[in-house]
């Protein structure tokens, strides 16, 4: 579904963050991308979503070449993005935020479908509330549903557990697992919170210095393997 090969990218200061990153994701898979801060996880997501220009490599998504394509074209190709820090529209209501997920997409009605309020009932209760006044966890739920309203084929999540209380992380984990199972949604989860990884992911990629250093194909085996976790995460 998604094939990344030899991806090289970095920032204008000249630092190379991604050093020939290669991996692929199969349809319906939930893959976790794990690594310490500064190893290139967010840089990769910014490159994949078209916000950062890569200097070399290939990115293929559903048979389309999306290497260095414009962000709105990548979104319309079927990639939904839940960025780090959530990036909700804080002056808009919950409903308007969800509507923003539909407006830019071709082939989707410009309206918020009823199912968008079902996974997280708090969003239904607070439809008219200004999104900026909600808690971090509620904003995260909103950001996830905003991406899903656009009916993506691949959902990218950048540290969704960051700064959120554990009970809501758990709720988000269960809901994501259910949605990906029921709708065979492909998910790429960038995380440092292992609890969420265990709840959602099937396969796990460990990232170090801009490349995939190691791969664990069955996340359930990971919980007994503290050596590898220790190696790639500072825990």
């Amino acid at each position, binding site marked *: 579904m998604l094939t990344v090969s030899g991806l090289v990218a970095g920032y204008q200061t000249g630092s190379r963050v991604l050093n020939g990153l290669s991996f692929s994701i199969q349809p319906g898979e939930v893959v976790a991308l794990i690594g310490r801060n500064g190893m290139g996880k967010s840089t990769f997501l910014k490159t994949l979503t078209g916000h950062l220009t890569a200097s070399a490599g290939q990115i293929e998504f559903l048979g389309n070449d999306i290497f260095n394509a414009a962000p709105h074209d990548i*979104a319309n190709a079927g990639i939904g993005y839940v960025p780090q820090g959530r990036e909700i*529209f804080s002056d*808009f209501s919950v409903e308007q935020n969800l509507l*923003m997920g539909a407006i830019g997409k071709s082939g989707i009605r*410009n309206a918020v479908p009823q199912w968008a309020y079902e996974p997280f009932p708090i969003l239904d209760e607070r439809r008219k509330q200004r999104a900026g006044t909600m808690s971090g966890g509620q904003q995260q739920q909103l950001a996830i549903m905003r991406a899903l309203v656009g009916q993506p084929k691949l959902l990218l999540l950048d540290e969704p557990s960051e700064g959120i209380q554990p009970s809501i992380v758990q709720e988000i984990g269960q809901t994501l697992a259910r949605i990906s199972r029921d709708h065979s949604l492909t998910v790429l989860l960038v995380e440092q919170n292992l609890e969420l990884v265990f709840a959602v992911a099937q396969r796990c990629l460990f990232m170090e210095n801009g490349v995939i250093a190691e791969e664990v194909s069955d996340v359930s085996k990971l919980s007994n393997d503290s050596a590898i976790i220790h190696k790639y995460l500072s825990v």
Partner: protein
Amino acid sequence: MEFAVAITLDTVSFTLTLLLVTMGLVVIFGLMNVINMAHGEFFLIGAYTVVALQQVGAPFWTGLLVAPVILACVGLVLEELVIRHVYHRFIDTILATWGISIALKQSIIILFGPTSQSVVNPLPQPVDLLGVTYPSYRLLIMTISLGLAISTFLFFYRTHAGLAVRGVIANRMMAASLGINTRRMDRATFAFGAALAGFAGAVMAPIMSVDPQMGVGFLIPAFLSILVGGTSSLLGAVLGSGIIGTANTVVSSLWTQVAAQIVVFSLAIVLIRTFPEGLTGRKR
């Protein structure tokens, strides 16, 4: 009493026209972070469109349609050729648009000469309103400008496209990742802002002296309105235009044009000192 009514009507008509110019500036600044120094020349070209049409014998009313169309095209071309290359370099946008402004103004001087032109008032018959004999053309300006301002508001706050524009203003990167084509939106908005300014110029032509400096004469109060009202929303444009427009008209009709300038600038300084982010801006 009659004097008060006349001043009120003058104030409202000036404020509404100022609002048309200011709204374009606010949206362009909000969306692209571009301070458009050439916006006054868009107003100027609008007025000269009416002059040109008058010279070829076309009825005045065609100018109200042709001017915004011409300015939309001018806006599109300038956005494509200049603005899009510099809009992430804030200071350069001021220089670049200032350059555009000089070039446009000099082109007007080459085409029409440096002296002022007059446009025949299309509705010379005054009407009686609340005991005041008032030029009917000014009443028409008010109606049209009010309608246009309300339509602009409805567009931005009641339509999906308007929500998308406000979304791009609030968070450009996220809006793009939700599938919104921000480039197309920049282009459309710049053209729309230019068209509004062009329309304002055309509509004001019969009651102003049409000369190459008239653009600056409108740009400065428009910028003051934005500074006073704040750049965060269109509401700021309304508040700012209201305050600057009222102060300007009232003082200049009670006293002199020069006194009006002094009062308006002093008022702006005090307001900006008290509300650095503008009246609608958030406190930092």
